[in-house]
């Protein structure tokens, strides 16, 4: 199953921060909990959140986890981390 797939670092982009009561970090972890196969994997998958100016997080995901997250409400895009170059 998914647990044998290779996990790669992905960015989960969720647009602007919702107005009102909203805790980005707990929301991101909760989304990840619903996505990864085992609860214990959340800790090893989660890398960091973006929560000061916009909404999103970084996690190690398999292709199927990426797919599940992409279909979740509030997610704009899930894409693998790339390395950019100085110009």
């Amino acid at each position: 199953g998914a647990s044998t797939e290779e996990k790669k670092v992905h960015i989960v982009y969720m647009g602007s921060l919702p107005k009102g009561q909203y805790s980005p970090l707990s929301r991101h972890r909760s989304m990840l909990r619903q996505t990864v196969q085992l609860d214990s994997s959340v800790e090893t998958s989660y890398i960091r959140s973006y929560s000061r100016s916009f909404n999103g997080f970084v996690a190690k995901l398999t292709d199927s986890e990426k797919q599940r997250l992409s279909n979740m409400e509030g997610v704009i895009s899930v894409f693998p981390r790339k390395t950019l170059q100085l110009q």
Partner: protein
Amino acid sequence: TTRSWDFIGLQESATRNAQAESDIIIGVLDTGIWPESESFNDKGFGPPPSKWKGVCEGGLNFTCNNKIIGARYYGGSRPNSTQSARDGDDGHGSHTASIAAGNRVNNVSFFGLAQGTARGGVPSARIATYRVCQPDGCNDEDILAAFDDAIADGVDIISISLGEAEATDFFEDTIAIGAFHAMQKGIVTSHSAGNQGPSYGSTASVAPWLISVAASRTDRLFIDKVVLGDGRTLVGKSINSFASPATRFPLLHGKEVSSQCSENNSMYCNEGCLDKKLVKGKYVLCKSNSGDFEAFAAGALGAIVRNEPYIDFSDVVALPAVLLSAKEHDLVLSYVNSTKNPQASILKSETIKDAEAPTIASFSSRGPNFVTPDIIKPDLSAPGVEILAAYSPLDTISFTFDDPRRVHYTLLSGTSMACPHVSAAAAYVKTFHPDWSPSAIKSALMTTALPMSDAKSLGGEFAYGSGQINPVAAVRPGLVYEALKEDYIIMLCNIGYDAKKLQVLSGDTNTTCPKLPVTASPKDLNYPSMAAEVFPAKPFNVTFHRTVTNVGLATSSYKAKIVTNSKVNIKVEPEVLTFKSLNEKKSFLVSVSGSGLPVKSRLSASLVWSDGTYSVRSPIVLHTQS
């Protein structure tokens, strides 16, 4: 820089709003900064502006001051990374930061070359450094983290001189994502267009809410001369800071100083081919344009290399070396082959005035925009070739040579160097108009840009966008084309994003996609340039809708003028816009019709609105792809 700001008209004597400039904060997302550089000392600076909400968390061996008011670093836990915002691995971040906002520093040069007063475009502005690049590259997750912080910290301008190799969807492009949220908060993002030129469609900087910057040349041209034993002098390229020798030295062909490579490999001076004993005290003639690296590694006295494939700028060399055109290189080869004891002397570089400038560098990435072909990218151009600016005193002064010289200022070329010119120009405009939106500032820079020559820059508008920035004129643009978050949302609706995603993007549950006609496209965005992709070989009739805001004289009347060499019919309706107050808005239509364009071709024109005082120019481009 010691020339570029003068070249684009922002002289030291330019009118400045000193207090406002001191309140500007430029966030530089790069390799960090060298805080001890003279370009960043805080003599004469007061405490950070009260709006600043950032921190100085520069990590190891890093202290902020009243010039560098903020520092953060990212990716420090990766192997071989540094837990510091100090630009100790590269020098690129110090260079870009000083182009934008470096202090005035007198008597700066590169070993006597390009001497002058080095200064950033807004020397009184503050810098916040966000180190997003480590020796293993600049990761998406770190770039996004830096945008997240910089926006919240309260910077005014974001300058980002790095990028991807090719354009991607806006929401899989971290710079486009970050710039969108910056724009929402009134922050201008200036981004390098890329160094993948001159290929068609090579720019990866495509989002309409940021400014994509191409690299142009200034009128300061570096040349280097080689004098052959028969007295002939040939002129080539290089930034060769080594003193001209008093005598001539033996000049040998690469194949004569190799003992272990094939003739073909040795004539190119390929890696490992030159014999250290044989090259000592001699110049080497190499057929490869990178033969000087091998000549340096082998300990040769100097190198004459061949400019093939052709490049149109000079790099710093670590030994006396000159890059000759294929024709001139052949002359040297002929001399070496026909002379018993060939000799030469490679002179120190000099600078001459380039009457052709400004032109776009061949390396500068070109449009069209492969994500939204109806938006011209790059947007505009700025100096990005052979720019002298601050550098970190690293173990090497070159990205390619293991050059042991330590310098505090060096010359670099790239759209990386062009980008901070626009960051500073945007900051300069903002000091006069602190309440202008990012799109108004961008419009001011684009509509006042100096037109450039299609004949001299391959790709025309796809090379230079609206032209070369003119910061002083941009302060008084007359009219601006403004686009706010809602306008970009409609453009995103146009290209197929659904309203639900756009609600998430904007954070506004009232966001909807209006019912759009089938002809709706990003060309309808209120952009300061106009472009449309049309079908090849078919008659076309394209209409652009635009609205301008009066920021010039309260009472004014602007007349439209179309400038074109193309066989095309362009109508503007109405042809006169009359304003009765400041900030009044007026809309107009531009219709372009013609009988058909060949495959992969481009038709150019300009619309100029003029009231006799202000001149507001927008390029119009119709193009076809395959």
